[in-house]
């Protein structure tokens, strides 16, 4: 007696409908993801490729750099591929040929780059040091400065966020003129530190509150002073948070334009000011603007890719209480 085995388990109609729905939702989700990734990344791709273009490529709108030797025949290939040239990078002295030679444009670019780097690094460091100390104090002790208690002091620090830069800009312009701080890096560093300090304090306060006080109590019993405990016990534990705050400050200060445009003119110009000053004058010389813009954003792209989790950690702090 041979019976065909009865299939006992089988998808019912409802289950098959469910699976269809599951596939549809997968396709929709990945569709949205790809779509948004293109929106986010295309401008960067566009800038990077445009920096290798020449005038005809710009006008014909070819999109993909491709070695001419391998470019297939046909009109479709001509409208899609172009032969990359170093013209854009030559204009800021960073192409392979010009790298060996002296170049005034490169010197100019490197000077602005150095200005940006110094200002961003120093002000971020300063903000993290000052901010971490203040946040630690506010999370551990009760203060009373006049009528101001802890919450008031914290609010005072955080309320600086609301202050729009334009309110400070013109008074600072006049003050800096009197103090001979106009067009100096120190002047910019002070202002940038001020502008990122509230964010640092916010992130660090969150960070310190997750560290149990028993740690310091044990350290104090063992004979460390309060500052000793802070520096040797707490700071190493809170380091990831400090890195997050530092990176976030770095991003904000590297990209800052408004104060730099108002307060610097020739010596302390930062990279954004240089990019902005070239924007109008270049016309359709897109390759040189693209090279300059790309060189200006490249450091942050690298930081974004390598240190992404710190940035996310920093921004997530305080969001979740």
């Amino acid at each position: 007696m041979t019976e065909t085995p009865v299939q006992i388990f089988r998808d019912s109609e409802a289950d098959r409908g469910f699976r269809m729905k599951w596939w549809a939702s997968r396709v929709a989700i990945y569709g949205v993801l790809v779509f948004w990734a293109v929106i986010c990344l295309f401008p960067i791709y566009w800038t990077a490729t445009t920096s290798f273009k020449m005038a005809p490529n710009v006008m014909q709108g070819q999109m993909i750099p491709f070695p001419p030797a391998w470019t297939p025949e046909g009109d479709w290939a001509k409208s899609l591929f172009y032969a990359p040239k170093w013209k854009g990078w030559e204009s800021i002295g960073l192409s392979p040929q010009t790298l060996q030679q002296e170049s005034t444009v490169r010197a100019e670019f490197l000077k602005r780059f150095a200005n940006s780097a110094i200002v961003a690094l120093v002000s971020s460091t300063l903000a993290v040091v000052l901010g971490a100390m203040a946040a630690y104090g506010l999370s551990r002790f009760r203060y009373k400065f006049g009528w101001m208690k802890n919450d008031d002091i914290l609010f005072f620090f955080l309320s600086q966020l609301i202050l729009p830069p334009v309110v400070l800009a013109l008074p600072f312009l006049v003050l800096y003129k009197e103090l001979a701080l106009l067009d100096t890096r120190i002047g910019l560093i002070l202002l940038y530190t001020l502008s990122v300090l509230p964010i640092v304090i916010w992130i660090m306060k969150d960070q310190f509150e997750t560290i149990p006080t028993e740690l310091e109590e044990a350290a104090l019993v063992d004979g460390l002073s309060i500052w000793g405990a802070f520096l040797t016990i707490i700071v190493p534990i809170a380091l990831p948070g400090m890195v997050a705050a530092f990176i976030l400050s770095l991003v904000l200060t590297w990209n800052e334009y408004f104060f730099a445009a108002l307060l610097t003119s020739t010596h302390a110009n930062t990279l954004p000011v240089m990019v902005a000053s070239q924007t109008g004058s270049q016309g359709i010389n897109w390759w040189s603007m693209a090279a300059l813009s790309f060189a200006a954003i490249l450091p942050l792209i690298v930081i974004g890719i390598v240190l992404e989790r710190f940035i996310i950690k920093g921004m997530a702090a305080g969001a979740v209480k």
Partner: protein
Amino acid sequence: MSGNDQLHVVTSDEISDSRRRFGGLLVWGAAGLMALVALAQAAQILGWRDFGFTNWRPTLYAYCLWATALCWAQVITRGEHGKRTLFVLPAALFVISLTVFPLLFGLIIAFSSWNLSSLDGRQFNGVDNLVQMWGDAFYWNALGNMVIYVAAILVEYAIAFGLALILAGQIRARKFWRVAFLMPLMLSPVAVSWMVGKSMLEARFGPLARLARALGVDNPSFFESPWMAKLTIMVLDAWTFIPFMMIMLLAGLQAIPKELQEASKVDGATGWKSFWEITFPLMLPVSVTAILIRIIFKLKLADIVINVTSGGPGGATDTVTSFIFREYRERSNVGYGTMLAMVYLVLIVIAMTFLMKFANRLTRPRT
């Protein structure tokens, strides 16, 4: 003071009178020095006597010295308590000297006419600036634009929430998507204004204009009609800042206990319903924080406007900041610009106070 500290420290400070006196001497000595230097400089400005100062730097140095002395004296006169004060004091001094003082100074400037490029110097002109502001249609226009720009945050919020929901769901290569979505936030707004505003949106050769033509738009122009220009600026700004809201919302989503969603699933709530009944209410506090911070950043919007449209066409895209920037660049009168900025600050403080009250009510647990 130490009675209800988070961190209990038993200290026995015996501070001798001489030590206390030394600390006091330090602070007052430094303050006296600062007053002396400032007085000497003022005397030179008023033309009483020439000390050979070329700028106000000596007073600045004296101020720094006084601030250091003040911090040091805390430890000397108050011992262990002083060491605690030392955590907050430097930051507080820094912020006070860089905001409160310039703000007070700004109040003086706001009520004067002061052309930096002319030699006349500052002239007190009472409420003239206010009167001029009242009649300045461009300023009111810029304020109106700010309201529209801020309103656009709701759309940004919806998009950011959608993306955060997707990122929090079960997807492959999560890290790649997160990095890709984060990228716009890393780019400098000035570079973005060229990359997107000036080249990709360029009417003849820009890829987006080409795309628009391929889709059947005859003459794509993104900056000619006022509303189109406004919209383009909004999109550009949204592009940079959506990642910011997205990350905050994502952090909030990941903090929601999984059990809650599972429980709602067991109870038979479908996707849409479970979102509105469970996820959204739980996300309300995070949403409010994200939106408030976004509003604060939006109110500072300037870089993109300055570099892409410089306020045009006809002030349609002006923000208050970009307007004051141009006002100063064209006439280099700091008085009027400062007055405009001060009024803006007052409006912001009023608006933010109301918003925060409203936000508090919104996030209060429902009973």
